[in-house]
């Protein structure tokens, strides 16, 4: 079965490795609330609102891009890992992939609804940040779990 929307199998291992490393670094630096000061750069902002200041639009701002770079790396490597072909692709693998994607979306929005009910004020900002990555992470988890389960049942 030909899947035109998947990346080549050859990038799976490398993208998976980069994804795990960058995700761990992002998690640790977020929990420790640490950013390296050498990542301060002027950046062009379409919209920006600093604390206790008015919003500015289409302007250059001085900001630390550590979290931005890490998040972009996590997203890109995660997408490359999640949506690269398996060693042998066929219609059953495609069905497992679709099933995992649907489960990930349902699970993600269920957790988000719970968060809307039980988490408030500034703490909810953390929920929104995590929500950027949660669908992708859940999909990777569900799909890999299905593949391992199938391989285990067949051995």
């Amino acid at each position, binding site marked *: 079965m030909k899947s035109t929307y998947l990346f080549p199998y050859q990038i799976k291992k490398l993208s998976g490795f980069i994804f795990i490393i960058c995700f761990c670094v992002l998690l640790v630096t977020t929990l420790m609330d640490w950013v390296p000061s050498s990542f301060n750069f002027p950046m062009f902002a379409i919209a920006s609102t600093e604390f206790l200041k008015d919003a500015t639009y289409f302007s250059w701002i001085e900001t630390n891009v550590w979290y931005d770079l890490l998040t972009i790396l996590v997203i890109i490597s995660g997408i490359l890992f999640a949506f690269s072909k398996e060693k042998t692709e066929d*219609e059953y*693998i495609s069905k497992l992939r679709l099933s995992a994607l649907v489960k990930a979306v349902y699970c993600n929005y269920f957790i988000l609804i719970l968060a809307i009910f039980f988490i408030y004020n500034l703490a909810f900002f953390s929920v929104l940040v995590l929500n950027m990555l949660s669908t992708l992470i859940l999909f990777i988890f569900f799909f890999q779990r299905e593949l391992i389960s*199938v391989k285990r049942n067949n051995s």
Partner: protein
Amino acid sequence: MKNFIKIQRTIKGLTQAALAEKVEVTRQTINAIELEKYSPSAVLALKLAVVLEVKTDELFQLEEKDWY
């Protein structure tokens, strides 16, 4: 949907891996079809019938529950 792939495969003396290679899928797919965990596409069903040298309706049988 009921299938008789295992029976026909055994008659032809083919392993799951050998059949999988002939129809260009993984062994896991053949196993999932035989265990009725997965219904193959029309193309795969026809390929299986050609390789096992039987008619498609001798290989697959609709059940009552497939109508709902």
